């Protein structure tokens, strides 16, 4: 990496020679080392999205095209108007590299960061969701260590701040063994008034800049440039770059911030995350069209003797920057005093459009306010990997095992088995909003007290599908996560994404990113889902083993259920009722759990998404919901519909008798039909009397709906009408293997 210098002091920066020259030309003087450090951080991939921006620009403009979108990409979080004067803010972010080095604090500070992003939209954080990815747990102490402490880090931080963790997912794959993926999502709820009081820009000259929260220390310096490199053996030495979280201080900051906003004297608000003060101050003034003069000596530090470089680049946690109207300064400070949150007035905004930072009489930073936020973009090369053709041509072997055994293996596999071990450690009920408990619905479901509205939220992605076809894989992820929300009775309102990919400097890695973005873009435009935010985490590679992660464009969808009577849950309710399979089952087993669990294969042709079919299915479900026909719903996902049906049976100890003789196409083998992962399918429970009506509506909509069986009070699943003999599955036994996989691996 190149070195820059100023008066004999030297600094290694992650900037290209071209960027260095641009900066020198812009300033027409040698930048100070502090300024170099600020450019270095602000132009890092993590802060500037320099590789991803050209691609992300292709997304439909959410704020322009959807009247209920109040804030879209570019803000700290997406915000949507949900009626009755309320708005929701939500965002998803990665904390992959810190968690791979120090899982407990890495995950905890990930939660801390995402909470701040929501808080600085002026609303109260009310829910967390965490999509996690690790190497397989079996015989792998390193993966077990990461998994255990990531979950504990999330639990300790989330539980202490009083924000329920209402959902998430865990995927295990060899490619995440050293570079685990820890994504964190948060939802905030507030009034539209609250939101309007907290723009993340300082647009008014003469306002006070108040720094509140934790003190500025030497931790996390250069955390950002570290997140924009791949993981090497040297990373162990980067441990000091991982920040330490303090959930108690965070809780005080949440309460103090919300109370400060309610005073009406806050004019702008920004959290200090990646890039610390450099990032916050330059974005506040740069985006607000103002400038500022900040006195460095006012910034309270954790230890004496910190220089301007360290102070401006520190990523110490739990800090917020407030822009306060002059007449309300004392009122706002009084709130901070009540909560005993440390705070200091560090400067004022002005109309200079220049960001100036003073150390005594000397200006250590004197930069055009927009210079830091206008990072250059880089057009990266893309190349489809050569290995794909071979992978896509892999066929499903003839099964050598009995189908019963395969089903048992699937339910007990790490990716499909119950995640109760995880969610028991999360307080998922604090806030008295959680209406559907973890494990009982496809998505987390929260009531909005004082209204008859409910928030449904889900996260997910299938990296195995994306690895084989990132374009279809990204669409599949959308279909799955939207499906979760729809299965709960909600209408998907908006999407945010967290793009976890490999090194963008490698054309193959960039190809994956680029195709996944295309997939999201096409799907969301057709299905009319606004993309209101995103986070890009590149450089997820492990240089020790020379492997890139499987691509993971993780999707988060937030939806709304109007009225308690319209909530749908997952468990089957009544024996004698019909079981319907909605959506077409195709020979799509590429990247399936069946391939990986039974044969150790990663290839085959993954599911392809036809937007028109998906659209028709969703419309049909909406009609069935209006007619109150659906008693239970669960989307078909990993492992195929036998997994779905088993999960629906468990809660109320019901069983099912399935007859596939009429519905299974002749050209599909039994195993291919049972374990296909074709997207956009659902399993419904309905009253037999409603079947005629369902058939009628399905014919109009041209949606495949097949009656595949009847619920029974006997806890077993019998499958008839196969090419081979009938099968019988003991659900009590199946449930035991479903529930015991993770406890067995983690507790012994």
């Amino acid at each position, binding site marked *: 990496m190149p070195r820059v210098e100023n008066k004999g002091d030297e600094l290694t920066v992650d900037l290209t020679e071209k960027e260095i020259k641009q900066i020198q030309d812009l300033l027409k003087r040698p930048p100070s080392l502090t300024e170099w450090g600020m450019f270095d951080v602000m132009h890092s991939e993590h802060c500037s999205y320099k590789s991803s921006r050209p691609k992300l620009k292709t997304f439909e403009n959410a704020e322009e095209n959807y009247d209920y979108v109040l804030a879209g990409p570019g803000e700290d979080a997406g915000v949507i108007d949900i009626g009755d004067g309320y708005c929701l803010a939500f965002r998803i972010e990665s904390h992959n590299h810190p968690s791979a080095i120090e899982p407990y604090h890495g995950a905890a500070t990930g939660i801390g960061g995402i909470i701040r992003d929501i808080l600085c939209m002026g609303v109260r954080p009310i829910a967390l969701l965490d999509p996690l990815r690790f190497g397989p747990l079996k015989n792998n102490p390193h993966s077990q260590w990461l998994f255990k402490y990531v979950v504990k880090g999330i639990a300790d931080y989330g539980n*202490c701040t*009083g924000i329920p963790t209402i959902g998430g997912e865990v995927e295990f794959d060899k490619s995440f063994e050293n570079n685990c993926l820890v994504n964190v999502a948060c939802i905030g709820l507030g009034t539209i008034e609250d939101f309007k009081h907290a723009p993340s820009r300082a647009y008014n000259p003469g306002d006070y800049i108040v720094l509140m929260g934790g003190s500025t220390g030497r931790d996390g310096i250069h955390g950002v440039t570290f997140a924009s490199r791949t993981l090497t053996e040297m990373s162990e030495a980067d441990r000091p770059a991982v920040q330490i979280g303090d959930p108690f201080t965070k*809780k005080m900051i949440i309460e103090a911030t919300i109370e400060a906003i309610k005073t009406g004297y806050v004019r702008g608000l920004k959290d200090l995350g990646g890039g610390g003060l450099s990032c916050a101050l330059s974005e506040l003034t740069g985006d607000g069209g103002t400038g500022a003069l900040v006195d460095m000596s006012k910034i309270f530090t954790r230890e004496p003797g910190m220089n301007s470089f360290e102070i401006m680049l520190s990523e110490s946690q739990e800090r917020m920057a407030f822009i306060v109207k002059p007449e309300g300064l004392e009122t706002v400070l009084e709130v901070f005093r009540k909560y005993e949150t440390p705070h200091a007035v560090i400067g004022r905004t002005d109309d200079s459009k220049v960001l100036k930072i003073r150390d005594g009489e000397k200006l250590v930073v004197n930069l055009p306010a927009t210079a830091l936020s206008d990072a250059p973009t880089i057009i990266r090369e893309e190349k489809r990997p050569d290995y794909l053709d071979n992978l896509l041509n892999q066929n499903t072997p003839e099964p050598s095992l009995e189908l019963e055994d395969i089903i048992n293996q699937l339910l007990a596999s790490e990716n499909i088995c119950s995640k109760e071990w995880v969610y028991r*450690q*999360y307080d998922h*009920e*604090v806030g008295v909003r959680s209406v559907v*408990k973890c494990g009982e619905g496809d998505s987390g479901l929260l009531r909005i*007290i004082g209204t008859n509205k409910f928030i449904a939220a889900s996260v997910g992605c299938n990296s195995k599908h994306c690895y084989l076809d990132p374009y279809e894989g990204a669409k599949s992820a959308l279909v799955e996560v939207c499906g979760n929300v729809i299965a709960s009775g909600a209408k998907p309102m908006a999407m945010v994404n967290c793009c976890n990919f490999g090194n963008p400097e490698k054309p193959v890695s960039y190809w994956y990113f680029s195709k996944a973005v295309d997939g999201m873009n096409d799907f969301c435009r057709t299905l009319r889902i606004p993309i209101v935010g995103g986070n890009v985490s590149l450089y997820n590679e492990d240089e020790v083993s020379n492997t890139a992660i499987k691509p993971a464009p993780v999707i988060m969808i937030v939806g709304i259920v109007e009225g308690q009577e319209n909530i749908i849950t997952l468990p089957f309710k009544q024996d004698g009722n019909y079981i319907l399979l909605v959506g077409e089952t195709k020979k799509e087993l590429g990247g399936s759990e069946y391939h990986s669990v039974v044969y150790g294969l990663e290839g085959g042709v993954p599911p392809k998404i036809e937007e028109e079919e998906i659209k028709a299915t969703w419309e049909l479900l909406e009609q069935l919901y209006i007619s109150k026909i659906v008693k239970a719903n669960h989307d078909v996902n990993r492992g195929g519909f036998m997994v779905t049906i088993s999960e629906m049976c468990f809660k109320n100890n019901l069983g099912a008798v399935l007859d596939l003789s009429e519905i299974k196409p002749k050209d599909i083998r039994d195993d291919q039909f049972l374990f296909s992962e074709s997207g956009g399918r659902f399993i419904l429970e309905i009253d037999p009397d409603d079947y005629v009506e369902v058939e009628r509506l399905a014919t109009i909509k041209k949606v495949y709906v097949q009656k595949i069986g009847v619920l029974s009070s006997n806890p077993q699943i019998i499958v008839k009408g196969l090419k081979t003999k009938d099968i019988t599955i003991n659900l009590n036994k199946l449930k035991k293997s479903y529930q015991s996989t993770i406890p067995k691996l983690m507790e012994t």
Partner: protein
Amino acid sequence: MTIKIACIQFPGSNCDLDTMHVLNNVIGIETHLIWHNQFKESEFDGCVLPGGFSFGDYLRSGIIAAHSPAIEEARVMLKDGRPIIGICNGFQILTEAQFLPGALLGNDSLKFVCKWVNIKVENTNTAFTNKMITSSVLKIPIAHGEGRYFSENLKELEDNDQVVFRYSNESGEITNESNPNGSLDNIAGVCNLEQNCVGLMPHPERASESILSPTGTTHGRLFFESMIEFIKRRVS
């Protein structure tokens, strides 16, 4: 008469707003959220110490809050016989402040646990259980990392009827399987000798609305309805 209840907000309380919601909107009793160093006992007929992580619980659960000025005010209330309930972290604070006997240790699983459990009512004479039926089973959630009840004087507690709740199965049997955290003798809640102060690990405020209960129960309301009954009896 107008009953006025204080819900004490310590730095780090996080079930304070939930408790406020249930008392004010579900039970319909005038409840005020009071910052811990502004609490004046003389203005209230009873008080609730809500759940959460007071002062982050970094040192030991409840120990720092037990030294808050609010506790000295509450002690006057306690001596005067007015009702005080500590829920979860509130229970931990009340044992640390020695309003209640025993201590809450780390769960035997060494993990935080959040789930719905059953508790059996052992004493219906307290300020918070007088509307319950002896030996009935309540459905109520827990969410804690340090909820393992311990006391060196179990016999004394039993002799004095200070065990108020035990973790049980659905039919009220006290079994090892129904003990979620390793509590001594499955103890989930206790009271003081005078029975006007109760502490428990489960969360009544999360069990007071049918929409939040997996089985539609509202057993949590009984705690607060008992408190109202107790206050009314005291006054009359």
